């Protein structure tokens, strides 16, 4: 028989449970910390590199602390073709964003609000595009674009990027509209709106944040796309095309600064859309 009283046994058990809980908690927090730094640290190192002079970048060993030397970024901006490429990337992404939203929103509305013959076929067509490596389609389009005079044009490129972004924009907007009760629109019709007025006065204000998110999504898709951009642009290179095609010729500091410039807007935009990211995917899954 044990000498411990009942109370003492209880106390010991409680302590044991607490110890286990604490251990789990510690394990949990450290894995969170590990994952967060696994993502952030490489980005930090890129920043360190971009904020160092060329000598430091090519030197050894490296300092893990940024020197806050703007030489590389300065060099990058003045490097031949960079500014143009940056501008081109922006233009192509903006075009893509506008076209994808402009075409996708009405289609998303139709999917959300109407039952019509061919609806499922249309949805299949949209989903099908996800089952194919879309950038490959730039290959035949390159030939076609030459024939119609769209070769080496940002507009042509953004059309290809729209093909990438449009399915998402249709699915996302349709889920947005599905989330807005039909009765709100019907109430507006009864109170004197026609379809367009009801859409603008009731649906649009409610869908706007989500629409912005999906626009941003389209922007990022275009901004990051490498393959089609490299195949379709020659003189009007986007930043990704420029970086890929000058990998072997450009100095390292251009690469690193370019990498930083490339990920900055994406990080920023993701921050803007973070609230919608999950509902977007939650629905796009179906």
């Amino acid at each position, binding site marked *: 028989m044990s000498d411990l009283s009942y109370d003492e046994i209880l106390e010991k058990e409680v302590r044991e449970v607490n110890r286990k809980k604490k251990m789990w908690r510690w394990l949990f927090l450290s894995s969170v910390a590990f994952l967060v730094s696994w993502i952030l640290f490489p980005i930090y190192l890129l920043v360190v590199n971009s904020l160092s002079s060329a000598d430091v970048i090519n030197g050894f060993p490296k300092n893990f602390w940024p020197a806050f030397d703007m030489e590389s970024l300065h060099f990058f901006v003045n490097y031949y073709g960079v500014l143009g490429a940056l501008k081109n990337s922006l233009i192509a992404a903006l075009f893509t964003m506008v076209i994808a939203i402009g075409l996708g929103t009405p289609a998303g509305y139709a999917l959300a609000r109407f039952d019509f013959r061919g609806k499922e076929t249309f949805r299949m067509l949209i989903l099908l595009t996800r089952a194919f490596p879309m950038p490959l389609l730039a290959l035949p389009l390159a030939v076609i674009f030459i024939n119609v005079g769209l070769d080496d044009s940002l507009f042509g490129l953004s059309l290809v990027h729209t093909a990438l972004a449009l399915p998402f924009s249709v699915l996302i907007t349709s889920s947005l509209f599905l989330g807005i009760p039909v009765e709100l629109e019907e109430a507006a*019709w*009864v*109170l004197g709106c026609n379809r367009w*007025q009801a859409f603008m006065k009731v649906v649009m204000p409610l869908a706007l944040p989500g629409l912005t998110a999906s626009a941003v999504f389209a922007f990022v898709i275009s901004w990051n796309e490498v393959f089609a951009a490299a195949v379709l642009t020659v003189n009007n290179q986007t930043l990704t095309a420029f970086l890929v095609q000058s990998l072997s010729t450009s100095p390292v500091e251009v690469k690193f600064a370019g990498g930083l410039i490339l990920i900055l807007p994406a990080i920023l935009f993701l921050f803007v859309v973070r609230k919608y990211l999950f509902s977007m995917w939650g629905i796009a899954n179906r």
Partner: protein
Amino acid sequence: MTTITVENIKKSFGDADILKSVSLDIKDQEFTVLLGPSGCGKSTLLRIIAGLETQDSGTIKIGDRVVSHLPPRERNVAMVFQNYAVFPHMTVFENIAFGLRMKKAPEKKIKENVERTAALMHIDHLLKRYSGQLSGGQRQRVAVARALAVEPDVLLMDEPLSNLDALLRLQMRAELKSVLEASKTTTVYVTHDQVEAMSLADRIAVMNSGRIDQYDFPDEIYNNPATEYVGSFIGNPPMNFISPDFQVGTVPNGAFQLGIRPEDFHISKEQRDNYWPITVLTREKLGSHQQLSAELNGQLFRVNIPNEIEIESGNTLYLMPKEDKKRWYTEGGKIIL
């Protein structure tokens, strides 16, 4: 004069006939309730009157105007939805003003009407709030105020009280009644709650899978159900329907069933002439009276008896239907007058 005339409206979704030639004549300033079980087509009919749904055939007239082909915005109707549909991105004021703004009413009139209807619905202190900051009952009030503010010819309501809790529902019901009586607007109101229908309606249209079985005053609906269906839908518990295979007095020609309400029996504990000996199956005490379910020759029926009568299940009780309360129905379920 705002009458509503519904003529031979038919509607089907796919191959399901939801409305099978429905006609209704609603008088000016009348409060009509569409009553029926879930899925019988009440909302569909209401939405056709509003113009939110298009009929397959038939016409709708509001006043002298044929509106069947017009979009909702040109019918001068207002509607209160089951989930209220208060615009979440507008303040209560803007919600109520919405219809007037669409009609390009002058600012002064908008302000006047909004304030008047808001006061009427007791929400004048909420005008600056957004719908997210309102309770269900308050949202409901906003929806009604928004409908009244446009001074519509016709007010349509689709189960406007069904999302409220029981107590609030009672309170709102009384309030709606007085507000609508004062506003003198012709109203069509959809519900599946017969008590609500009885207490609100000038006239009730009882719907039965796409048809209107009876359109009449509440008392008439209760006392003289036009069909077996109406009798068994209205009243709690509903009317008893008994095959006259035992002594029931004179049976009119063509009669198939006797309809008699549970409270319309003479009751005795001793055997008497022409009384039925029934076997009590269950007894429920309901406070004001007791309710029995009983059996005779394999037919089940319900009886309400006063509290004073002491009875146990298994006992026998003697009943006779009151002569003036007997209603006779044909084999097709129609009343014989």
